[in-house]
C-alpha cells in the first residue's frame, strides 16, 4: 500500500482508468455527468418519455398533477427526484444503503443536485435537512445515507446542511411491506425538531434516498412547518411511478 503522497504522485504519472461513477464499468464516462452512456441513457429515458408530477415528482404519463396530489395536496411545496426506483438508481441506492458503499453517495448526490437546480428554486432554500435515522438503526448501519447524500448536494448547490435539527424519536419498523395508511400510522409522531431556532422562517430542503408513498416526507414536513419553517421542498434520489410504464 502506497503512502498518500506517493499514491498521488503515481496517479500523476499513471492516471487511474476512468470508469462510470454509478455502475463502475470501464465504459468511457461523459464529460459532465461522469456516467457511462448506458447509465445516462437509462436516466434520460424517463425524463424524455414521461412527466413528473408538478407537486410530488412521481412519474406520470401526462403533464400536471398525479391522481394522489390532485386528491389531497401534500404539505411540502414541491419535490424533485432523479428518476424512478428502478435499474441503475435502484442498484446505486441498494449499494449505498445495504452494502455500505458510501462512494455511491457521490454520483447520486451530484445527479440529485442537477435535478434540484432544474426543478426547484434554489434561491428559496436556506438549509438542507437530511431525513434522520433512529439511533438504533444508525448504530447498526454505521451511517445515515440521507446525510451522505445531503453532504454531496450541499457541496453542489452551495447551501449548508443542518445536522441534528430533525431527529427520529421512535424506532419504527421498516416500511417496505406496509401500505400507505400503515406507513402513515407507523410514522405518526416519530420525528421531532430538536432546535426550533434553526428552522424558524427558513426555506428547508428535506433530503432522502427514496420517495415511495411520501409518508416520511409529509410527516417530516409537518414537523418542520410546525417548528416555524417557512417553506419545505423535498428532494430524493428515486421516486415512484404512478402508472403502468406500458401506457
Amino acid at each position, binding site marked *: 500500500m502506497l*503512502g498518500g503522497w506517493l499514491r498521488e504522485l503515481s496517479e500523476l504519472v499513471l492516471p487511474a482508468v476512468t470508469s462510470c461513477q454509478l455502475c463502475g464499468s470501464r465504459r468511457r464516462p461523459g464529460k459532465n455527468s461522469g456516467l457511462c*452512456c*448506458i447509465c445516462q441513457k437509462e436516466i434520460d429515458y424517463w425524463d424524455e418519455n414521461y412527466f413528473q408530477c408538478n407537486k410530488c415528482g412521481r412519474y406520470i404519463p401526462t403533464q400536471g398533477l398525479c391522481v394522489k396530489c390532485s386528491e389531497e395536496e401534500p404539505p411540502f411545496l414541491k419535490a424533485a427526484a432523479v428518476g424512478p426506483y428502478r*435499474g441503475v438508481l435502484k442498484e446505486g441506492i441498494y449499494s449505498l444503503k445495504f452494502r*455500505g458503499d458510501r462512494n455511491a453517495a457521490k454520483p447520486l448526490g451530484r445527479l440529485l443536485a442537477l435535478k434540484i437546480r432544474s426543478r426547484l428554486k434554489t434561491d428559496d432554500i436556506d438549509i438542507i435537512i437530511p431525513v434522520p435515522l433512529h439511533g438504533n438503526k444508525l*448504530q*447498526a*448501519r*454505521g451511517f445515515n445515507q440521507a446525510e451522505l447524500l445531503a453532504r454531496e448536494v450541499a457541496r453542489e448547490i452551495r447551501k449548508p446542511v443542518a445536522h441534528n435539527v430533525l431527529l427520529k424519536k421512535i424506532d419504527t419498523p421498516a416500511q417496505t411491506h406496509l401500505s400507505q395508511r400503515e406507513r402513515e400510522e407507523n410514522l405518526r409522531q416519530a420525528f421531532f425538531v430538536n432546535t426550533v431556532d434553526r428552522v424558524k422562517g427558513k426555506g428547508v430542503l428535506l433530503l432522502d434516498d427514496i420517495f415511495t408513498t411520501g409518508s416520511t416526507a409529509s410527516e417530516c414536513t409537518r414537523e418542520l412547518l410546525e417548528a416555524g419553517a417557512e417553506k419545505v421542498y423535498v428532494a430524493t434520489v428515486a421516486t415512484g411511478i404512478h402508472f403502468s410504464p406500458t401506457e
Partner: protein
Amino acid sequence: MTGCLKYSVYIAAGSSHYRAGYTHDPSLDVGFFSSQGYKDIYLLTCPLVPGQAIPLYESISGEGGGKGTFAAGTLDQLLEGKIRELKGAARKFKIPAEVFQIKKAAVDSNGHRRIFEYAPVMEEVLRGRILFLTEIERLLYFKKLRLGVETEDVLHLLCLDNKCVRLPAIRPLGRNRFICSRCGQSDGVVPVACASCGGTCYHCENCLSMGESRFCQSLYAVPGQWDRSRLPVRQVEPKMLVSLSPAQENASRALRQFVLQPEQREKLVWAACGAGKTEVTFRAIAEALSRRQKVLFAIPRKDAVEEIVVRIRRAFPRISVVCLHGTSRERFSEAEVVVSTTHQVMRFYSSFGLVILDEIDAYPYNTSPMLQAGIMRARARGGKIIYMTATPSEELLKRHKKGELDCVWIPARYHGYPVPEPELVIEKRLPLMEAGDKIPESVINIIHETLEGDLAQLFIFVPTVETGFRIARLVEKVLKLPPFNNFEGGWVQFCHSRDGNREEKLAAFRKGSYPILVTTTICERGLTLPRVNVLVLFADRNKIFDSSALIQMAGRSGRSRDYPTGKVWFAGSRYTSEMKRARDIIKKMNRQAFEMGFLRPEAEFILERRGRC
C-alpha cells in the same frame, strides 16, 4: 440489530496461574473459567473495537495462548509487564496510550450457564460458515431459532471453548496498513466515518458487494468437517442420464481415482468447449459423498449455476443439493452438495471435502484474488480441488509443466466431431463498420452464407457496448438489401451485460425466434444452440478478445449432434498473436483427440479438408 461490540483485553488470574483474553462482558469469562481456578479478571484496556482489541490480545498471548504462572505476590508486576507489552504493540497499531489501565472487573459468574446451553445449537448453525454478527442473526431468523439470550454472548462462549474462531473484520498490519479478513485484500481498505463505533473507522471496498466489512466488526467462523469422518461410509452412485463418450469415460475414471487416493490435492481438467465436463465429475462427486464429505461445485457465473444445479439434482436425486447465487432463496439452507457462484463461497469456512471449480478462467474469478482466497478457505483441511476449464491460464499451465498439478485431458466433444477451427478474416475496411458507416463485403458474405447457405443462426461478437448498438443497427439495414431477400421485422437483436431484457432475448434466440444475435463477451460462455455459426468482429482488439475469450466464443459453434460442423470466423483488420494462438490451440486439441482415437472416422476428412484450407 446491534451496533459494534467493544472488547477489553484482560488477564484472568488464579492463585498462581493466569491467562490472557478479551471480552465484552467479563462475567461470561469468569463464569467459563471458574472451574479452572481463575477467580478474578483484571481489565488492561478500555473497551476497544475488534480491529484493535484482537491484535492487542494476540500481541500478549503469543504461542502459549496467553497462559502462564506467577509467584505469589507478583500479580501487580505481571499486570504492569503486560501493560508494557500492550503499549509496545499499540505503537505499531497507532492506538493511543490513554486506553491502557488496570481495573479489576466486578463480575457475576453464574449467568453464563444458561447462555452456554445454546452453544451447541449455535455451533451447528454456524458449522462450515464464516459470517458477521448481523448475518448470523439473519441466519437464526431464517432457521426460526429464537435463542432468548444475546447472540454475541453465545458466540463469545463458543470462542472461549475454542469451537469458534473470531477474527477482526479489518486487521491492522501496521501504521495505516490494514487487511480485510473476509477477502484478504489490503489495497481497498479506506477510512470512513462510522456512527456505529463513533469515530473514524475503516472498511474494505473490495468486498462491499457482499455487505460492509468494518474495522469495528468481527467475523465468526466454525470449521465444517469435524464430525464427518466418524459417520459410516455409504454407497452413492450417480444416475447417468447420458452415456459418456470414450474421452469422458477416461476422464471420469481419473477423477474418481483422484478422490480415492490421499496424496494429490489438486487436479486440472482441460477440456474442449462442449466436451461435457460436468458429467465427468459425477463419479468423483459420488465418491466424496460416499465418504460423507460435502461437495462444492463453484462457477463464476450465475446463469451457469442455475443450469448445472438442475443436472446435478437429476444425477443425485436422493442427495440434498442447494443452489446459491446473489438472488437465491436457499442462501442459508444446508445440503451435501452446494452449487454456488464464486462470490457466495466467501461465506463458507473449511467446509468441503471436494471442491469443483468450473470455468476457472472466467470473469470475475480469474481477476479476483478475493474470490480465489474464498475458494481456498471453503475447502476443508485435507480437502481436494478439481479445476475445470477449456482455456487454462499461463500460471496453471506452468504448474502443470513443473509437475505440481496433474492434468486430465478431454480433447474431444461428446459427439466425436472436432471443435470448429476458426477462419481468420482480414478486412481493412472494418473500422468503417465500427463507425456505424459501412459493412464490408466479406462480412456480408459471412452473414449470407450462414443465413441462406447453412440455414443457421449467427452469433456476432463485438468488443464494446457502443459498437454493439451501431453494428446491430447496421446489420439490420443490410438485411433489407440484396443479396438478402428484404428481410423485414426483428431479425437482429443486441444484448449486453446491463440489458434489462437480456434473459428474454437469449431465450428467444435459443428458441430460434430470430437468426442474428449481436453481443459482447457476456455470451462467450454457457450458451448451447443446436445450429449456430460464430463471427467475432474486431477480433484484433486483443485486450478484450484474448485467446481464451476467442476459444470460448469459437466453442459456441458445432456443439450439437445435428450440426457438429459449425463455422467460426475471427474478423479483424490485422492478425494478432491472440487470434493465431486461439486457432492453434483448437487445432492442437483436435489433432490430439484424433490421435487418441476419440474422434469419429469421418472426422479425419473434416480435419484434412480444414488442413488444406
